[in-house]
Each structure stands twice: as structure tokens, then as C-alpha cells.
């Protein structure tokens, strides 16, 4: 068959997908760009062109800077904790012990629990009056009086990070476990015979197999964590005293609570740009890692 017919046929087969993508992603994205240069309201006023005023206002505002710090902190701490816990859990699940298959199946639970259900569950656990965390810590004698874990600016973000980690570290563990199982037995055995200790075996035998998949998990989790909305909205709505207000929550408030579509759109695009830079940096890292191995 002629090559140009094959490629035309491919485009024809992709047409439905492309039409969908252009209408629900392409057009809205372009329209967000247009809106970001206007003072449009969400309902009613079309708005008029205001140049880069929205961007100036948003970038110099203290709300954006604080939300950027909060988001970065949330992403870095939760992803780092998920990676460490995930690898530790995977190393454990790679050992021989009774009930290993059952434990591995259990790891699906947090992942399968809907994000909103997870957030609700932890909100109940952290409840200041009747929560299980307060009850458990009091009964163990670790705290004297009940605390409002989500109600105090000092602890709310940490409480959110714990809830997020609990849901997401099992996924990292499953990915890492699959990679561990790809490590050939004879190489580990040879390293053992050569007298390599546990750390050196992990560093030089296991790590090369683990690095690629973990890097991919790291990329996906960081991007997800940077976009975080659901768990925070359900647990704290960005409070108390805006201490858990991430960028996505800020965009939501600007565009939908205050109905300022124009400035909300500019803020959304700033977030998009940050995610894109993050993704591009990671992609470069991935390519380098692929080239090295």
C-alpha cells in the first residue's frame, strides 16, 4: 500500500479522538489564555482586554507566593515520604514470609479507596472531639488533652501530608516491587558470594533495576502532588488561616468563589507553566537516565 494512504488512514482513524481533544482540551486551553488577558467575570460580563495586569497582580500578590510555598512543601515532603516508605515496603514484600501474597493484595486497598473517601476518613480520624487519633494518643498517654489536628495552622498541613502518603505510598511500593522482582537471582547470589554487604548489594545490584521505574513514579507523583486539590478541599478547604491553601485551591477561590474568571485564568496558566517546567525538567532527567543505563 502507498505510504501516504497509510498515513491518511491513520489520521482518519485518529479523527474522533482529535475532535474530542480539540473541543474539550484544546479550545478551553486557548480560551483560558484569552481570558487571562481580560477582566472577565465568571457569569455576566464578557470583560475587556487588560494586558498583563492579571499576571502582575497575581505574581506580586502575597497569596500566590504563600500558596506556591505551601504547594512546594506539600509536594516535596509527601512525595519524598512516599518514595522512601514505598521502597521500604517493596523491599519487605520481596522477602519470603507467610502471608506475603495477602499483604501484597492489601496494598491495593489505599490505592483503590476513592480520594474523597480517603480524605473523609482521615478527617474523621483527626476529628477534634471524637476522632480516633485523639482517642488513641490519649489512651496511650502520649497527649494530655484532645487537639484539633486540622484546626491548628501548625499541624494541618502535616496532617494532610500523612493522609496523602497513606493513600499513595502503596502504589510506589507495587511499582518498586515489580522492579525488584526483575532483578536476576544469580546476580544477587554472586554479589553475596563476593562478600557484598546489604547496603552495597542494594546500592550496586538492586538500585540499577529500581532507578528507572522509581524515577517514572517520582515524576508522576510530583506532578500529581503539585496539582493537589481534592484531599485538601475535603479536609480543610485551604484553612485554617490559609495554611493549607495550595495553588489549585487558590485558583478555585479566585475563579469560582470570587468569580473573577480573568485573574483566575492567569493564575491557572501560571500553575500550568510551573507544572510544565517541572515535567520538562523531569523528562530531561529521564532521558539522561535512559541514556546512562
Amino acid at each position, binding site marked *: 500500500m502507498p505510504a501516504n494512504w497509510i498515513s491518511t488512514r491513520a489520521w482518519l482513524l485518529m479523527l*474522533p479522538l482529535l475532535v474530542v481533544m480539540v473541543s474539550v482540551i484544546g479550545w478551553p486551553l486557548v480560551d483560558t489564555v484569552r481570558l487571562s488577558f481580560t477582566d472577565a467575570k465568571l457569569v455576566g460580563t464578557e470583560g475587556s482586554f487588560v494586558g498583563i495586569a492579571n499576571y502582575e497582580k497575581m505574581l506580586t500578590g502575597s497569596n500566590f507566593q504563600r500558596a506556591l510555598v505551601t504547594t512546594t512543601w506539600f509536594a516535596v515532603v509527601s512525595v519524598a515520604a512516599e518514595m522512601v516508605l514505598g521502597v521500604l515496603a517493596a523491599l*519487605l514484600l520481596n522477602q519470603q514470609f507467610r502471608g506475603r501474597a495477602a499483604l501484597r493484595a*492489601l496494598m491495593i486497598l489505599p490505592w483503590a479507596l476513592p480520594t474523597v473517601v480517603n480524605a*473523609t476518613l482521615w478527617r474523621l480520624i483527626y476529628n477534634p472531639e471524637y476522632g480516633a487519633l485523639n482517642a488513641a494518643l490519649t489512651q496511650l498517654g502520649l497527649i494530655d488533652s484532645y487537639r484539633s489536628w486540622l484546626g491548628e495552622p501548625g499541624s494541618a498541613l502535616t496532617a494532610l501530608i500523612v493522609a496523602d502518603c497513606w493513600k499513595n505510598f502503596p502504589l510506589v511500593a507495587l511499582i518498586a516491587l515489580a522492579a525488584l522482582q526483575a532483578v536476576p537471582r544469580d546476580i544477587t547470589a554472586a554479589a553475596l558470594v563476593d562478600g557484598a554487604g546489604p547496603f552495597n548489594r542494594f546500592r550496586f545490584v538492586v538500585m540499577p533495576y529500581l532507578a528507572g521505574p522509581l524515577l517514572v513514579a517520582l515524576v508522576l507523583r510530583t506532578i500529581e502532588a503539585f496539582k493537589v486539590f481534592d484531599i485538601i478541599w475535603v479536609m480543610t478547604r485551604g484553612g485554617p488561616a490559609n495554611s493549607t491553601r495550595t495553588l489549585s485551591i487558590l485558583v478555585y477561590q479566585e475563579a469560582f468563589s470570587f468569580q473573577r474568571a480573568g485573574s483566575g485564568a492567569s493564575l491557572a496558566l501560571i500553575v500550568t507553566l510551573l507544572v510544565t517546567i517541572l515535567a520538562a525538567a523531569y523528562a530531561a532527567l529521564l532521558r539522561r537516565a535512559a541514556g546512562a543505563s
Partner: protein
Amino acid sequence: MERQSRLFSVFVHASALLLAAVILAPVVWLFVMSISPAADLSAKPLNWWPSDIDLSRYRTLLSAVENSAGAAFVASLVNSLQVAGMATLAAIVVAVPAAWAVSRTPAVSWSLYAVIATYMLPPVALAVPLYMGLAYFGLLNSVFGLALVYLTILAPFTTWLLKSGFDAIPREIESAAMIDGARLDQILRLLTLPLAAPVMATSALFAFLLAWDEFFYALLFTSDLRAKTLTVAIADLAGGRVSDYGLIATAGVLAALPPVLIGLVMQRALISGLTSGGVKG
């Protein structure tokens, strides 16, 4: 196989128990809350085990008496099923031909990367125009409108999964059939699609779970029983003035049941689906 010392074996078993406890405790507690009498949950010190098994909340939430908490919950359950079902079906319908074309025509594979790249877009980047667009077409607070919006997430995702599924089916089978004189539609209908059935099923399940889980767009684009999904209904319960925490927990258990069951039954397929992207790097 390396021989394990006794101490190491004790350490492994203790860690395994700890891991199991960390994973199970919150989930078991959710279930215990859902079957504990309200008095147990507000007792101090807290009753960790129900004094009496109370299933009344399940009856409350699943009853269809008009204007009850149950009617609202059942309505949101039905909405979630409809939205996730329609969005999954539509995503598969557009993704199958596209994924096959990309898999068999390397020259156009760059377009797939463009599609996948959109997966990284934060939903807030599309939310305002989508809101205005839905309002313009009268599709706000409608299951059809929400299902359409969910295609922004499901279509790239299923295309990507299906493409790697088609890649695993050798092209030689198709070329052989073509040499034997089969038409393209015959090849696809009788050969490729049946072979791709398992990966299509897995992709559909993943897509369904994604849609079932979705919250942000549902929060923005739905406002009452006509379209509100389960995730929004639960967030309302959690953030509202409900005094019985057991009722919130019950709603959580019911919403978690379908994905958890799918997860446990489909373990193997899910794990290989989750990890294949990762392992290939």
C-alpha cells in the same frame, strides 16, 4: 536462596505485621464506624469495638424514601454510575481506532505524545472555559455535560493504555491476513479486536475507576440531585453539619466498595497495568 538468620526472619515478620496494621487500621476503622451505634462513637474513652452492631445507616442510605438522606445518596450513586459509564464508553470508542492507528503507523506516533502531554495539564487550566461552555450549551448540572468533561481525563489515558496493548499484538498476524486477502475491517473485527479484548477491558476498568474517583469537575459543574456525583455528595456530608459520624463513614464504605472490589478481583491485571509503564521506563 540465601539462608536467613533467625533474627532477620523475626524482623521481617514484625515489619510485615506493622505494614499490615498501617494499611488496615484506617480502613477497618472506617468500617467499624459505619456499624457502631452513634453513642459508641462519641463516648470518651472511645469504644474501639461496637457494643452492638448497628446496620441502620446502610438501610438509611440505601432507602429510596422521597426527600430522605437515602434518596439523595442513591441519586448520587446513580449519577456516578451514569457519568462514569458514559465517559468510559465514549473514551474507549474514540481511543480504540486512534490507539491502533498510532500503534501501526510509527510516522504519526508523535501525535500520541501530544495527547499524553495534555494529561499533565492541571484541571484548573481548563475549568473556566469549560464552565462557560457548559453553561452556554445548557449542560451545567447534567450527567451528559460532566461525562463529556471527563473525556479530558479518560481519552488520553485510555489511548495510551490501549496503544501499548496493540503494540503487544504482532503486526505480522495482520499482514498475513492481508496477504490472504482479508479487508482491513475484517482484520480488525475478527483478529485484532478479539486479541485486544483483555487490554480493552483493563483500560475500561481503569477509566471507570478514574471517573468514579473524580471530584474537581464534579464539584464545579454539578449542583443538585440531577447530576451530583457520589464524591461530591460525600464531601458535602463530610463538610456539613451531620452529627452522626457513622453516617459519613457508611457513605464512604459504600462509595469505596466498587473500586475496592474491582481492585481486589483484578489485582493481577491492575498491578501489571500500573507497573508496565513504570518498568519499561
